[in-house]
């Protein structure tokens, strides 16, 4: 477990560095001032949501082909973490909209698409809670994970088209002209959040494995004790 500890420290360090770059190193935006700094966390969270849901899709396909519980545990772990990141993406997007456009919510394509994404994967978690049998739960949630992921590009495209036929009340707050220090802060945030995603994923998988082992032990114990009677 030594490398896990080392990796945890690496993640900690990279998050610290990206915090420094986002808050102290990068200059404030000309138009939006200090509030623009939320952008680094917003982009990194949204990117990780997409990454997590891609992993869910891959794990779902792999589960349906291989039928080993490890793939289902990966799908579950990635769904949960993805929901956390996409929630952060939507919330930071909303806060940013408040300061950039003056409203808490704007039906802007990317923000709206993220929200629909959030909706689909929260639904996937709801679905998981409503099936008792582990094999059936894994199978049904894999199917929904595939259906949801296939829908993602269609959602993005349709919302983009839909937005283009409606007059835009608030224009996306002045095209961001990113200066080199800003680009560096953005790249650092994305990398450190991705590392954080990997760390959380590993931790969640360890917990799932322990849960599965515990369930096995309990089952064996029940079988043995019921045999005695």
């Amino acid at each position, binding site marked *: 477990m030594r490398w896990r500890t080392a990796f945890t420290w690496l993640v900690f360090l990279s998050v610290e560095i990206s915090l420094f770059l986002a808050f102290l190193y990068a200059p404030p935006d000309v138009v939006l001032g200090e509030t623009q700094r939320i952008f680094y966390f917003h982009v990194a969270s949204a990117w990780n949501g997409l990454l997590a849901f891609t992993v869910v899709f891959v794990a779902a396909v792999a589960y349906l082909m291989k039928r080993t519980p490890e793939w289902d545990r990966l799908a579950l772990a990635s769904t949960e973490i993805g929901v956390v990141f996409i929630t952060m993406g939507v919330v930071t997007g909303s806060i940013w909209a408040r300061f950039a456009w003056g409203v808490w919510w704007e039906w802007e394509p990317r923000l709206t698409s993220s929200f629909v994404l959030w909706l*689909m994967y929260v639904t996937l978690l*709801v679905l998981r809670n*409503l099936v008792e049998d582990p094999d059936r739960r894994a199978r*049904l949630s894999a*199917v929904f994970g595939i259906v*949801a992921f296939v*829908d993602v590009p269609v*959602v993005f495209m*349709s919302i983009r088209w839909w937005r283009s036929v409606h007059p835009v009340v608030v224009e996306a707050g002045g095209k961001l002209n990113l200066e080199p220090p800003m680009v560096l802060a953005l790249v650092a945030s994305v990398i450190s959040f991705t590392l954080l995603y990997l760390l959380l994923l590993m931790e969640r998988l360890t917990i799932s494995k322990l849960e599965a082992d515990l369930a096995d032990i309990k089952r064996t114990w029940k079988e043995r004790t019921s045999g005695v009677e």
Partner: protein
Amino acid sequence: MGAAGAVGWWPQVSALLWKELRSESRTHDSFTPMLVFAFTVVTVFGFGLKLAGVSLRPVFPGLIWISTYFIGFLGIGRSFAGEKAQDTLAGLRLVPADPSYIYVGKLLSNLLFLSALEAVSIPLQFALLGVEFTAPLLPFAGVVILGTTGFAAVGTLLSGLATHTRAGEILLPVLAFPVLIPAIIGAVQATASLLGLGNALDWPKWIGMLAAYDVLFVAVSLVVFDFIMES
């Protein structure tokens, strides 16, 4: 399609479709509630929205599709409930044909019921909510058919999925609506364009999107449906 030595695939689809129609004609379990609900919905829209002197025309495309999908869930949610209650899913799966015949048979029967429903509910909404029908008939029918097909494709698949959960068919709208968002956008925009609300030249684009959505989700459903039917 169809394993070696299997009975034909299409005969199975038509047998299942015929079974659905006959069962519905005897029990009236899903079409009658949908039809009655369609009348109820128009009444509710009337009382809830039609204030004196206010035209519903600008929001009418949204109203038609929201009501159609909500009414549709009532019937489509029952696609597999009967099979589960009578324990006949195992029988359907014992047929030595590719199990996708079950999906296609159910999809076609759902499409038939939904089309019959819309033939009543859509004109009814135009008439009772006082919105003049100004759209060219053929493209309008095309939008209705494509919007309904997308709904039925996703609804039939997820209805099978919801049946196997603890919540049962109640879960269907929860599962299906997020996935259906592109279909709702496409159907509402195409209808709006045809009714002269917004850009009148937009509808071919949205019809194309709806068609692509339908093809995509029928294809995906055919691939994954078998995994739902295992239990």
